[in-house]
């Protein structure tokens, strides 16, 4: 454990120093990596640790982004207040949607989460008077002291860092243990006294909350929000990141976000047309060849689980 603490401290130190040596462009990239990493880690709380794969997680990202934008712009709340309230809105959305979604499993879970996300997308798209429809909401800027790229970078680092600490604690907490148990064997989990549905719903809400944080951070960084924050293709981003980085480890999504965003930047520079093709190919490679993601390549493959036996 000590080794990872050292590595984390080193990473943190590097992260603090980076804006001083890199140009603004790269700092922006770092901000976007951080946002993607948080979104993916929140998503992974459900997928890797909870065994629930949602195909509509963009909904909570979008709720966070739009709530932040609307509160700051239309309700004219101070940015920090809007920023604090936004994840609560996302969590509330996760509560409502999640209540229905966690009753299902696997394919149906995925389909319903997709359906809800599309409903939200359609509502955002159509409710032009509130959300600006296809034009989105513009001029969503942070207050002056956070407007420079460097300042916003440190803000992002702080927020994302705190969220990572919280998520790390959650994963290793009694709540996390029970969640993992549900992932492994829901029937057995029931028979140690765990109310599986309630627990999964809590995990869903937590995941929605942190996805909302990611959305809110992105909203003020981007300066604008658009309906396609909720479109189903956006829902696949955390999925890809988690797959790339490995879903069984806590820091997998962070590594995956790094790789994903860097690749996206490189390919977009060279030949943007090829980005979806590249992404699709990587996905296929990962699924077919590397079930544990790239990080999994480096983890010890010492344990090989016994197949389930005991049938009559």
């Amino acid at each position, binding site marked *: 454990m000590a080794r990872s603490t050292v590595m984390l401290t080193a990473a943190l130190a590097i992260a603090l120093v980076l804006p001083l040596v890199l140009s603004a462009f790269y700092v922006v990239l770092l901000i976007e990596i951080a946002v993607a990493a948080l979104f993916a880690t929140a998503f992974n709380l459900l997928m890797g640790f909870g065994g629930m794969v949602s195909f509509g997680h963009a909904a909570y990202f979008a709720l966070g982004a739009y709530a932040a934008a609307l509160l700051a712009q239309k309700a004219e709340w101070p940015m920090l207040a809007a920023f604090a309230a936004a994840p609560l809105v996302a969590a509330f959305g996760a509560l409502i949607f999640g209540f229905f979604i966690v009753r299902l499993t696997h394919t149906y879970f995925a389909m319903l989460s997709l359906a809800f996300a599309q409903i939200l997308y359609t509502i955002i798209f159509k409710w032009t008077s509130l959300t600006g429809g296809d034009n989105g909401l513009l001029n969503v800027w942070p207050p002056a002291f956070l407007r420079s790229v460097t300042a916003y970078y440190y803000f992002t680092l702080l927020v994302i860092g705190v969220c990572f600490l919280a998520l790390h604690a959650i994963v290793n907490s009694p709540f996390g*243990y029970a969640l993992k148990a549900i992932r492994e064997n829901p029937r057995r989990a029931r028979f140690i006294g765990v109310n599986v549905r309630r627990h999964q719903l809590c995990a869903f809400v937590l995941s929605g909350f942190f996805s909302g944080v990611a959305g809110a951070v992105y909203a003020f960084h981007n300066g604008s929000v658009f309906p396609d924050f909720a479109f189903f293709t956006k829902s696949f981003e955390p999925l890809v990141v988690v797959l790339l980085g490995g879903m069984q480890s806590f820091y997998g999504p962070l590594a995956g976000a790094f790789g994903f965003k860097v690749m996206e930047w490189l390919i977009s520079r060279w030949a943007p047309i090829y980005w979806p093709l590249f992404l699709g190919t990587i996905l296929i490679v990962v699924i077919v060849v590397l079930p544990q993601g790239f990080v999994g390549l480096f983890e010890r493959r010492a344990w090989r689980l016994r197949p389930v036996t*005991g049938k009559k």
Partner: protein
Amino acid sequence: MAAATGDREEVVLETQDLRKHFGGVRAVNGVDLTIPYGDLRAIIGPNGAGKTTLFNLITGDLRHESGRVSFRGEEISRLSPDKVCRRGIGRTFQIASVFRRLTVIENVQTALLSHHRRHYNLFADAARLYRDRALTLLDRVGLREQAGKPGGILSHGDQRRLELAIALASEPRLLMLDEPTAGMAPNERHTLMALVARIAADTGLTVLFTEHDMDVVFAVARRITVMHQGCVLAEGTPQEIRRDPEVHRIYLGYTKAR
């Protein structure tokens, strides 16, 4: 039947006219069962007799059509499995059911955390909680040395021991074991059931189990209930069951007559 002493209830589990059918099949067809405190009750019967269905009805995994189930005097017929567990019934499953990717000790710790209702705690370091108690339980079932291994790599027999430890973590008053020795070699079976009997005696636990191996049944059980096609065919001490002509008739071919 064992006489009640002190604050122990005389009857731990009781079912009345329990029924369940699937389509046209009457899986459980009016089962009355009374399990007194301290009993080591074996439920035997050919495949399809309804033993596992009966278990699932008692634990709440299945909804019954009619009848009642009461545990320590309280009706539990409509409770969900997690609530049944909290009332004090522990259970193991036919197919060894552990948390495969959690370590052995995490398996037990999770059960303990849930039992003590701390599983909604978001911030404590779970690895440190109930460690000693978990190790004690693992000691009891002989798995202490394997505490750090993932549950899924244990041998089949060890997984069943782990499952026993998980069930015991919830401090049950009644332990229901569904074919606890399936897939084990004969001597392993005796060892496991002897362990169960010892733990039951030490902690005042009542045990209900299904089993196919008659040697094990006759060695361990205090009373035997024989099921056939969803009904209770016979019930009594091992001696009585051994001599029962009906049981012989049904079981001809399943066991040698003694």
